[in-house]
């Protein structure tokens, strides 16, 4: 009888995640899209000096939208429906709720993301043209690229959760996720400037997924992964701080 703790709250969040059929189908759609686009991009690789691994991981362009949007809805769906009152009624420590959501959704995104990129890589290599090199997971840097790209999908999902916790409105949060991923790199004109290596979407394609170094992305992929991870870390911290201070409805 010493009161609720992280385990109880995480169990609640896990039951909530599993019991919305739309979440399951959307996640599956994201995985299929990530794998399918990767296979197609791999098949279209014709340059013998290219980076087929990176190409086969190109499907994260779609996958990140799905995990980002699901991350947003993981919390804004509760504000929109009034469910948040029931959640905070059961667990008044709101930071704990957000931490449990991040753990449960983050783990789900990670498993789904890794499964999707592994499927893309394995199916993709089987369908590569004969003129291009056929990477294997044992080749230098390949397993690292595949696993980091799966992790990237989870980090974008957590960014969505953090943005949703800050804004509490689904439409606005999704606009920020999409804008941050796709529009911001265009505005920054990243390829020309040095700032591309600070933007998640560009880091994913040019560093995390790359086996062959890309100009402008000389930093270690580990450092770049850490930079990507800073985004959800800052957003979730801000979100937790704001949740605890604002009225919940």
């Amino acid at each position, binding site marked *: 009888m010493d009161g609720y703790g992280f385990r109880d709250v995480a169990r609640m969040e896990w039951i909530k995640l599993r019991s919305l059929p739309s979440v399951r189908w959307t996640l599956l759609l994201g995985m299929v899209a990530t794998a399918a686009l990767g296979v197609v991009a791999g098949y279209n690789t014709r340059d013998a000096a290219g980076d087929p691994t990176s190409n086969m991981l190109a499907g994260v362009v779609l996958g990140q939208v799905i995990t980002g949007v699901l991350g947003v809805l993981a919390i804004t769906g509760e504000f929109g*429906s009034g*469910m948040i009152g029931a959640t905070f*009624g*059961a*667990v008044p420590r709101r930071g704990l709720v957000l931490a449990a959501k991040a753990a449960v959704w983050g783990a789900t995104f990670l498993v789904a993301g890794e499964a999707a990129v592994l499927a893309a890589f394995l199916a993709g290599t089987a369908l590569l043209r004969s003129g291009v090199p056929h990477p294997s997971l044992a080749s230098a840097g390949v397993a690292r690229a595949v696993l980091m790209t799966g992790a990237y999908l989870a980090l974008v999902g957590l960014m969505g959760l953090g943005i949703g916790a800050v804004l509490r409105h689904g439409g606005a949060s999704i606009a920020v996720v999409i804008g941050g991923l796709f529009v911001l790199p265009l505005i920054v004109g990243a390829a020309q400037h040095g700032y591309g290596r600070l933007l998640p979407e560009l880091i994913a394609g040019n560093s995390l997924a790359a086996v062959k170094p890309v100009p402008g992305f000389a930093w270690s992929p580990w450092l770049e992964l850490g930079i990507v991870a800073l985004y959800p870390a800052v957003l979730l911290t801000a979100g937790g701080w704001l949740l605890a201070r604002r009225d*919940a409805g």
Partner: protein
Amino acid sequence: MTKGNTVSIRGLTKRYGGTAAVDDLTFDVQPGAVTGFLGPNGSGKSTTMKILLGLARADAGSALIGGVPYRSLRWPLRTVGAALDGAGFQAGRSGTSHLRALAAASGIPARRVDEVLAEVGLSQAAGQRAGSYSLGMRQRLALAAALLAGPAVLLLDEPLNGLDPAGVRWMRSLIKEQAAQGRTVLVSSHLISEMALTADRLIVIDRGRLVADTTVDGLAARGGGSLEDAFLNLTGGA
């Protein structure tokens, strides 16, 4: 279910912009009786309940349950069961899953979910998505969530909305039974006639201020025998 479960509101004030939704409100809700919380629409009933549940923050004063703020309860749903007006659940999730999630956060076994669904007459529809429920079924699901962990205090916001006559009678007897078992029961409503049938005591507020803290008979006496007259006089609606 001891006297320690008194709800006490002291000098409670909540402003939205420049206007006070709740204005220096003070009253107690005692265990073992049904206390009706009456007031016109927008008089501050829901805001008071939200502050009690820690969902909104007061600008001044306190709202305590058994002497402590809601946020410091160890297992909140075991102490306070609340059914607030408005959805409170997500449309895509079944009633069973909704309650299982809340049970998990409260350290309550999953079999209690089936029990409480039967208590509120929702067993048949328990597996369907809550978005497909009628208004009356939603009220029953909200009540099930409130009763789930066997709390000593019940806060019900407009629990009769959307119920048919048989449902109203059922809800009324359930509310009375909960009080008879020693629980502290606060029921908000804007229906005076219904509160006359359900409540023992009445708290009447208007524009966030307390205008009466009395019994049903006490209020009726002020209106020359008519509760409605007394209510409308007090709340400036006459």
